């Protein structure tokens, strides 16, 4: 049956129109035309501007007739558009009164906050026309992707091994050998690598449309252009970044990203997005008008009583996340990515901001975080908070979780780093961290803890064991940017070394880190390239570097194959042993009558851990009968960690009759005896004890 609303009722300068439907917001295909819907609490009138693709001036501007507005929503259906060649935006009229929070400027054409694709930065790094009156343009998008039977994978949280990567960095280096370097398609071509490494989740650094030219400048050190490379500054929340898609120049970035997600899912790999809802690319009162500022400044931004921008994000403005309107757009956005792109989880940049009220005060029961936690579409999505912000709020362990939210565990990172570099007195802290931080997440369980030693912020793993201090001169800020508390140790020489002793210690330290990370209860996260000793030459804040400081050099796969093999085997080992992947905290007791506690602590003497202030070592045993709370039976595992500069003899706890200790890993043994294939671990000769070299770890399997 034909629909009545497939016919126009109005006309404006040759364009056929009809009052639109307020829902859904954004631009939607309807029979015969396109429905445009946008809201503003304070605009007095609105005009739709339509451009032919790439043209300087709009081909038509259609004011919304009064009768096309319902509530605060302007909605209009326009018929007969050549939808593949249309770019659109809006002009809004309203008060300009900064003290009251209003900054309407009808001379600006504004991006639709719900734009599903955005043109203007179609090809990464291609200098734009700076005279463009409307630089970031909304596009019309088909949302009819054929997913076959794909849906988000719903891998249990405790079984994840996350790999944090930047889309462009992963394959941009000439050595990657992919056909379209630095793109979503490039990742797809490197799927065999991810499969071999064994990770089952990739977390993509920002892929929402951003402007790589935001604050771009020339480096005084190198003469290179410094860019907004990482992309933590959103232009449009519903659009994938065109410049990260090989087909972006054809406007097909939506399909390219969906094809990547579908293919990753087919290979058992989940996809998380690193989402930045705390601020936008519009900066403060001196920043550009892109979208929100001209649509409804007072609603979208946190403003001081005088009308200036609060700056809890450290980037100029702060999104007003607990305003009901803003809350809804965040929710709409995540629902869109979960349902239209089959995204498996989200990591929220500076998430503590999402728990502040419109004046910036932390809320005890933040409605936005609660809405996300209980939303039906997001019900199986993983939600991960970076549980701090640039305004001084630090909520690791106390982020409002509603039984759903996990956190980047900054205390895990700090504790592991300090233990690794040989600081004394950390045995107690490390025991907490390896158990999934029950001191922080008593009621939430170990899966609340995303364990990581390195992430995009800060040193890479190789740099962590090669530099005492940051070396950020290339960023052109006099080495003042980036964190100073790196808890790193260079193993005796700052930077690259030709000393074989130093180099072998660095390799050992990286293996130690990998081993500790991958046996910890909770969810491990690996930074892209750490498995092959990627370096940033000591730069711990490469946010602006579009060059080999960020690009993964695939030649490392050959030169660092020993480290790669160690990582790979440790990941397989973790996934083969449920005893590392408990949903709930270990009790340190024997509640099932196995004769052993689920976890027991040891030192150089079995059953006698050294918790003293001078201790630099720790050992533990996991009893396999307690795996998954006693639901499955696994082997027993013993791990000893000696971060002392001398070798140490560790007495081993006795196994039950019939079981023997086998060696899975020994980081002081030369490759290939540093690590074994799961299931092929050789019998340990002396079942009573083992000598650990200086700064090394041993993992044994009792079977």
């Amino acid at each position: 049956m034909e629909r009545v609303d497939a016919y126009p009722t109005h006309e404006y300068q040759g364009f056929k129109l009809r009052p639109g439907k307020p829902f859904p917001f954004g631009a939607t295909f309807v029979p015969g035309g396109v429905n445009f819907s946008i809201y503003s609490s304070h605009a007095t009138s609105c005009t739709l501007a339509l451009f032919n693709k790439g043209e300087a001036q709009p081909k038509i501007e259609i004011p919304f007739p009064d009768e096309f507005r319902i509530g605060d929503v302007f909605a209009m259906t326009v018929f007969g558009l050549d939808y593949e060649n249309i770019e659109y935006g809006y002009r809004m009229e309203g008060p300009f009164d900064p003290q009251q929070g209003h900054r309407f400027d009808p001379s600006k054409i504004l991006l639709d906050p719900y734009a599903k694709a955005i043109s203007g930065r179609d090809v990464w790094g291609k200098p734009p026309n700076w005279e463009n009156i409307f630089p970031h343009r909304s596009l019309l998008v088909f949302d009819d992707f054929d997913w076959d039977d794909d849906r988000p994978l719903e891998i249990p949280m405790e079984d994840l091994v996350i790999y944090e990567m930047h889309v462009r960095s992963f394959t941009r280096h000439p050595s990657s050998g992919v056909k379209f370097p630095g793109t979503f398609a490039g990742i797809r071509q490197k799927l065999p690598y991810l499969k071999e490494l064994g990770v089952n989740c990739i977390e993509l650094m920002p892929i929402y449309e951003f402007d790589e030219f935001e604050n771009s400048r020339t480096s005084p050190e190198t003469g290179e252009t410094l860019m907004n490379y990482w992309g933590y500054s959103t232009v449009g929340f519903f659009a994938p970044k065109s410049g990260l898609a090989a087909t972006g120049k054809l406007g097909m970035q939506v399909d390219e990203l969906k094809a990547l997600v579908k293919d990753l899912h087919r290979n058992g790999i989940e996809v998380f997005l690193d989402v930045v809802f705390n601020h936008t690319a519009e900066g403060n009162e001196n920043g550009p008008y892109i979208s929100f500022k001209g649509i409804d400044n007072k609603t979208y931004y946190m403003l001081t009583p005088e009308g200036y921008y609060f700056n809890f994000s450290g980037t100029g403005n702060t999104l007003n996340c607990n305003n009901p309107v803003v809350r809804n757009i965040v929710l709409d956005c995540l629902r869109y990515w979960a349902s239209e792109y089959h995204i498996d989880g989200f990591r929220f940049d500076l998430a503590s901001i999402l728990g502040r009220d419109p004046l910036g005060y932390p809320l005890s029961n933040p409605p936005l975080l609660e809405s996300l936690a209980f939303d039906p579409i997001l019900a199986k999505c993983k939600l991960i908070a970076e549980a701090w912000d640039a305004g001084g709020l630090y909520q690791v362990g106390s982020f409002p979780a509603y039984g759903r939210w996990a956190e980047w565990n900054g205390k895990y990172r700090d504790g592991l780093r300090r233990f690794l570099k040989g600081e004394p007195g950390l045995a107690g802290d490390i025991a907490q961290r390896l158990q999934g931080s029950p001191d922080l997440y008593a009621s939430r369980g170990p899966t609340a803890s995303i364990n990581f030693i390195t992430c995009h912020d800060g040193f890479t793993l190789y740099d962590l064991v090669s530099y005492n201090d940051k070396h950020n001169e290339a960023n052109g800020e006099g080495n003042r940017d980036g964190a100073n508390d790196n808890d790193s140790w260079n193993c005796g020489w700052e930077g690259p070394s030709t000393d074989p002793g130093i180099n072998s210690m660095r390799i050992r330290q990286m293996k130690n880190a990998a081993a500790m990370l991958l046996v910890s209860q909770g969810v491990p996260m690996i930074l892209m390239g750490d498995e092959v000793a990627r370096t940033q030459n000591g730069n711990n804040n490469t946010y602006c570097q579009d060059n080999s400081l960020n690009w993964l050099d695939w030649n490392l796969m050959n030169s660092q194959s020993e480290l790669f093999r160690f990582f790979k085997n440790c990941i397989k080992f973790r996934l083969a042993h449920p005893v590392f992947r408990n949903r709930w905290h270990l009790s340190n007791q024997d509640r099932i009558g196995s004769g052993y506690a689920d976890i027991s602590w040891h030192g150089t003497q079995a059953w006698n851990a050294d918790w003293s202030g001078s201790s630099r070592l720790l050992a533990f045993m996991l009893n396999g009968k307690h795996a998954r709370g006693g639901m499955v039976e696994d082997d027993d595992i013993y791990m000893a960690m000696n971060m002392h500069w001398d070798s140490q003899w560790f007495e081993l706890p006795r196994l039950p009759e019939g079981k023997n200790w086998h060696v899975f890993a020994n980081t002081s043994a030369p490759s290939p005896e540093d690590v074994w294939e799961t299931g092929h671990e050789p019998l340990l000769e002396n079942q009573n004890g083992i000598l650990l070299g200086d700064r090394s770890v041993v993992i044994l399997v009792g079977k």
Partner: protein
Amino acid sequence: MEVIQSIIQDVNVVKLAGDLDGNTAPNVQAQIMPLAIPNVKMILDMSEVSYMSSAGLRMLLVMYRTIISKSGKVVLVGLSEDIRDTMSMTGFLDFFTYLETLDDGLKTLSS
């Protein structure tokens, strides 16, 4: 955009020439759809398609779904490298059997 139909053996060969985009796709679809009868064997010869937009890709997939639902078979031949790359990266190529030449296509459909 030209659509040239022929029948070789028992195979419907449809040769497309020109740009396949939002302006031309509806017309092309209207011409091909009547051929999508039950158990049809069809070859789409793309060797003279110079550009394919999002709408063009979608038209191909709609054709594919229609033909498959009628127990037919469809094969693409003569894709340029550019178009093959675009189809591959956007996931559309995954649905199709595609071969280099018309002869390859005929062999595949007759076997």
